[in-house]
């Protein structure tokens, strides 16, 4: 899939004579370590447009930058009042939805990217959600609700005008990653557009990993569940006893 997309970009780029503009980009960090006092993280995405010709005067230059967390299946439920009680009546099983998704652009989204390009590259948040055969009458309501709830919680962000472009060449933006990050490989993508068409694309990974004690606990819980359970009980028993003994000593 990836080579195909890149090939497409190349074809599109060549289709416009004199518009060979390429992205040279970097991230402030390509690895995020989740430690015990992890409290979110900020990523700076920056880059430049390299050209082998003068700046073309066809259309406005658009920069769209996305950061995407690992996707997971999710169930969206709808409540309805039955006999005075609010009950879950419908459940949409959505195949995969990103746990985090942020889009930053240098102008309103509609002005920098066409709907066709959005669909082709899966850029905006609704395009990143995969919902086939979800098992409800009106699936659109459910995916909209998902986007709405996750946007309110800060997991999905659409920040128009958040990318600064200087001299049609240098660009940069910052992403604020929340504290409640899901572990996995995050993907950062940069799209360069002219006249709402993608002319170049850059992609890189950000590894988000638990480290140290966080990693040890997580691994133990998943690979040795029985030992982990017993350990949890032993800690509980010991601390219960210790507190009791400590108070006993204090009273004397």
């Amino acid at each position, binding site marked *: 899939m990836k080579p195909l997309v890149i090939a497409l970009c190349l074809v599109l780029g060549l289709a416009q004579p004199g518009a060979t503009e390429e992205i040279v980009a970097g991230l402030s960090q390509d690895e995020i370590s989740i430690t015990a006092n992890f*409290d979110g993280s900020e990523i700076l995405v920056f880059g430049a447009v390299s050209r082998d010709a003068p700046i073309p005067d066809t259309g406005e230059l658009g920069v769209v930058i996305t950061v995407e967390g690992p996707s997971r299946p999710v169930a969206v439920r709808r409540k309805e009042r039955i006999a005075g009680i609010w009950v879950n009546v419908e459940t949409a099983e959505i195949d995969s939805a990103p746990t985090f998704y942020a889009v930053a652009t240098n102008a309103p989204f509609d002005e920098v990217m066409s709907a066709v390009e959005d669909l082709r590259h899966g850029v905006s948040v609704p395009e990143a959600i995969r919902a086939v055969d979800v098992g409800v009458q009106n699936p659109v309501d459910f995916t909209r609700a998902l986007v709405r709830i996750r946007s309110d919680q800060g997991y999905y962000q659409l920040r128009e005008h958040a990318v600064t472009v200087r001299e049609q060449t240098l660009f940069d933006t910052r992403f604020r990653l929340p504290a409640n990050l*899901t572990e996995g490989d995050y993907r950062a993508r940069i799209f360069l557009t002219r006249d709402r068409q993608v002319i170049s694309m850059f992609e890189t990974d950000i590894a988000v990993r638990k480290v140290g*004690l966080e990693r040890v606990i997580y691994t133990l819980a*998943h690979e040795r569940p029985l030992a982990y359970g017993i350990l949890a009980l032993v800690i509980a028993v010991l601390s219960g006893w210790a507190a009791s003994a400590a108070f006993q000593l204090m009273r004397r």
Partner: protein
Amino acid sequence: MQIYLPIAEVSVNALVLLGIGGLIGILSGIFGVGGGFLMTPLLFFIGIPPVVAVATGANQIVASSISGVLAHLRRRTVDIRMGIVLTIGGVIGAGAGVQLFAFLTRLGQVDLLVRVCYVVFLGIIGGLMLIESVRAIRRARKTGPVAPPERRRRGWVDALPFKMRFRTSGLYISVLPPLAVGTLVGVLAAVMGVGGGFIMVPAMIYLLHMPTKVVVGTSLFQIIFVTGFATLMHAITTQSVDLVLALLLLVGGVIGAQVGTRIGVKLRAEQLRILLALMVLAVSLRLAGDLFLQPAELFSIDATGAP
């Protein structure tokens, strides 16, 4: 002071967790309830995923109950023999309850059932206890502090076989009623994800006619084993016990339990019951509100329920 929880995968304020643990611990020590029925909603409220909240809550209750039981043992207010009988029933019930829970999850709507269970059981128990203890206090005021102990009527309960002497409680009854109470509480504990003390305590007072002072310690004794069993089951089946979360909650909890036990012995039995009744009713009303009032957001996301 923010801390990242490795299993829950959220970052929360450590002081808030210590505070919640301490509050639950105090209640646990005073009333002999594990406090799960308060702990679980509080953890939801600060953003811990429900599965992790239930499993880790169970683990924390083990610790605070042990701390409480040790304080009660020194005071000789634990009927160990009764506790063992209740525990046997409890583990059988919890085993059955876990199966029931899995079955209901497959059907969907488990969420609603748990909530309705909370509202119904907390409402009935809280209401009955409140009425009964208000009456008891009125009686005590009219006839002076020492009301003549009512002679227990002989009923079908006394006709049951397998009688056993529970010396600490001053009872000579069949083991079948406590065994049944233990089993019922075990089922509810597994389905509702709590220790079941708030059902156990009134059941011991009103069904088994145990003296109130013994009830608290014995309930805690029983809760240790039922929640311990639940912790192990959760660790094995869902891997949702968060050690860091548990540790923070139980540091607060064990200290709170010691404080609570000291407050508990100073209060009179009737006052104790009225306080517990009011608290149980408050939680019940709060949850009933969620059922009957229109929620602000009709849709909800369940990231763990999907395959």
